[in-house]
C-alpha cells in the first residue's frame, strides 16, 4: 500500500515501514477508545429513537443489576431491536422511580422510612 519509490527502494521504504509499524502499535490503544466512542454515539441514537436517554439507561441498568457492556448493547440496538426496546421500556419505567428527569427527586419505594417521609 505504498506508492512510488516507497514500495520498491529499500532505504526509502524502510523509513515509511517503520512509521507504519509505529502507527500500528499506537493504534491498538486508540482503537479501543474510538470503538467505545462509536458505541456511545450509536447507543445515544438508539435511546433517543425510543424516547429515553443513554445516561438514564446506564443509570437504571446499573441500579437494577443488568451488566451488559456497551459492545453487546450496541449490537442489540442494531440486530436485536426488540430486546433493546425492552431495555428502553425498563428505563422509562424505572427513571420515574429513581427521580431522573424530574424535580421531585427519588421516590421512597423500597426504602424503610417508618412513616417519617
Amino acid at each position, binding site marked *: 500500500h505504498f506508492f512510488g519509490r516507497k514500495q520498491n527502494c529499500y532505504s526509502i521504504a524502510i523509513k515509511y515501514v517503520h512509521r507504519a509499524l509505529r502507527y500500528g502499535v499506537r493504534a491498538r490503544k486508540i482503537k479501543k477508545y474510538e470503538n467505545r466512542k462509536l458505541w456511545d454515539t450509536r447507543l445515544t441514537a438508539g435511546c433517543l*429513537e425510543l424516547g429515553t436517554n443513554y445516561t438514564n439507561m446506564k443509570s437504571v441498568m446499573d441500579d437494577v443489576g443488568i451488566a451488559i457492556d456497551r459492545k453487546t448493547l450496541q449490537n442489540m440496538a442494531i440486530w436485536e431491536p426488540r430486546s433493546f426496546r425492552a431495555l428502553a421500556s425498563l428505563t422509562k419505567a424505572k427513571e420515574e422511580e429513581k427521580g431522573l428527569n424530574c424535580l421531585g427527586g427519588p421516590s421512597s419505594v423500597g426504602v424503610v422510612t417508618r412513616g417519617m417521609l
Partner: protein
Amino acid sequence: MSVAKRVQQWATFGRMWYLYDAKWQNPLDSADKIKHYLAGSHKPIYHPLSDCGDHVVVINSHDIALPGDEWEKRVYFHHTGYAGGATWTLAWELHKTDSTMILRKAVYNKLDGNLLRRGRMARLHIFPDDKIPDKILENVSAQLRQLRLVPRRLDHYPQEVVHNFPKLFDWPEEHVIR
C-alpha cells in the same frame, strides 16, 4: 441475501429527507439539532465512513430569531485573501444581504471540521421562505420537531374568541389610558 432481507436492507440504509421549519427558532440551537441528522448520528447504524447522513431542508430561514442583542453584536469575519481584505459584518447586515447565510454558517461551524463536512453541507438545503422547488418537495419524507414553541399571534385568533375570553378586570369606558 433473501428477498425479505433485501427490502429490510434498503429500508435501513435509505436516505431520508427531513423538513425543518426555522421560523422564530434560534439558529445556533437549530444547528445543534440539524448536525446530527446531516451526519447520521441519529441512527444506531452510524459510522463516520459509511455515508449514512440524511438531507435536511430548512424553510423560513428569513424568520430566525437570534437571542438577546446578537443581531447588533454578533459579527461574521471574512478575509478575501488579498491585503486589506478583512471585513467584519454584523449579523443583521449579513441577514439583509443573504437570509440563508446565518443558518448555513451556524451548521458549518457545528459540524466536525473534517473532510466529510463539505459533503454533509451539500445535503443541507436552506430556503428563506416556504417556497421549495418541486423536485426537493417530492423527496421530503419526515419533519423535525421545532425547539422553541411558536405561539399563536393575538391578531391571528378569531375576534369572538378574544372578546369572549374571561377577564378579571377591564378599564371603565370613559377611562383615558395615557
